[in-house]
């Protein structure tokens, strides 16, 4: 006979309840850690999403367009995004260009972009906004 059985059915029930409580508590704790990590990593990886890079490119190129010259960010192949600051990224894109004098062409440009959270929204599904974007090379 085990020590548990010798202690009686009441002690066995208490131990079973404790075990169940531990299972629920540990499970909730693990999910809290793992969901938190997944949400946090996903949130930060949003800075590297293609839609984010394209918004950055559009914002940066907006200033360079005009006077018969335009660079389109929408068909560009954007690669090599990397962090150069807390919320600042740099990436390279092969952009389609149009110039009144030379016609259509392609330009490889490097863009630097600083991002912020829209309206100070604190949720991880918040929209990102371009705070500053410029062509650096």
């Amino acid at each position, binding site marked *: 006979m*085990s020590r*548990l*059985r010798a202690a*009686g*059915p009441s002690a*066995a*029930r208490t*131990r*079973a309840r404790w*075990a*169940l409580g*531990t*299972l629920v508590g*540990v*499970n909730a704790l*693990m*999910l*809290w*850690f*793992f*969901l*938190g*990590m*997944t*949400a*946090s*990593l*996903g*949130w*930060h*990886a949003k*800075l*590297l999403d293609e839609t984010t890079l394209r918004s950055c490119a559009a914002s940066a190129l907006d200033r360079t367009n005009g006077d018969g010259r335009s660079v389109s960010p929408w068909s560009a192949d954007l690669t090599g*995004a*990397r*962090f150069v600051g*807390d*919320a600042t*990224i740099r990436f390279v894109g092969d952009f389609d260009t149009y110039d009144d004098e030379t016609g259509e062409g392609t330009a490889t440009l490097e863009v630097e972009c600083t*991002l*912020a*959270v829209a309206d*100070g*929204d*604190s*949720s*991880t599904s*918040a929209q990102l906004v371009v705070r500053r974007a410029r062509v650096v090379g």
Partner: protein
Amino acid sequence: MPPQSRWTGLLGIAVGNALPLYLVWTGQLQVPDLVLVYFLELALAYLVLFAARPDRRLAERRGGEALKGLAAMVLGAVVLGPVLAIYTFGPVTWDTTTLWIVTVALASTLIGYAASIWRRGARWREGVVGAFAWRFVLMVVALMAASAGASYERLLAADWEPHRFGNGWALPAGELLTKLALALDLSPVIVAAGILCTYRLVSEVLHEVVDIFGDEAAQGAAE
């Protein structure tokens, strides 16, 4: 021969759940293969649940309700199945290891179901809902772990260093765990497999402990 203690079964559960982590660690198993195994286990659990659905016996008496239950199950599978399948099968690179791991996992799951049905006899339907629910939770955790691994990989490739951006640390625990992974220089695949295998291992070991204590309490009450 003295009857084998149920406590020794914990070792089997621990080894069975730690093995995939070891295989990922040594590069013999990919995270998408692991997710695929979880998907197939879920599909099998669904088939068993479908075969065992309690409303089958009510069908003769209350055809309408039985049909509603059947329709809900079929609809759930039609809606959720393809979504889960897309996320599961998309990243899998089919090779010998994948086929080997799928065969072993399916065989062991089928043997597990056969043993369970044989042991319970006419009461084989008991517990199939819980088993399916547990597989579903594991599938969700598997996709979550794979997503964490993929995000972590992208961030590492972009020279990311942890910082507070907006409320980017969704939960303080997430920040702690991410910084721990960075400090330990864990690779993205270890992060993903670590989440998945740790969650399953700890949960299943604790569940077995609850089961053992529960049975002892029931036995004590009966005596």
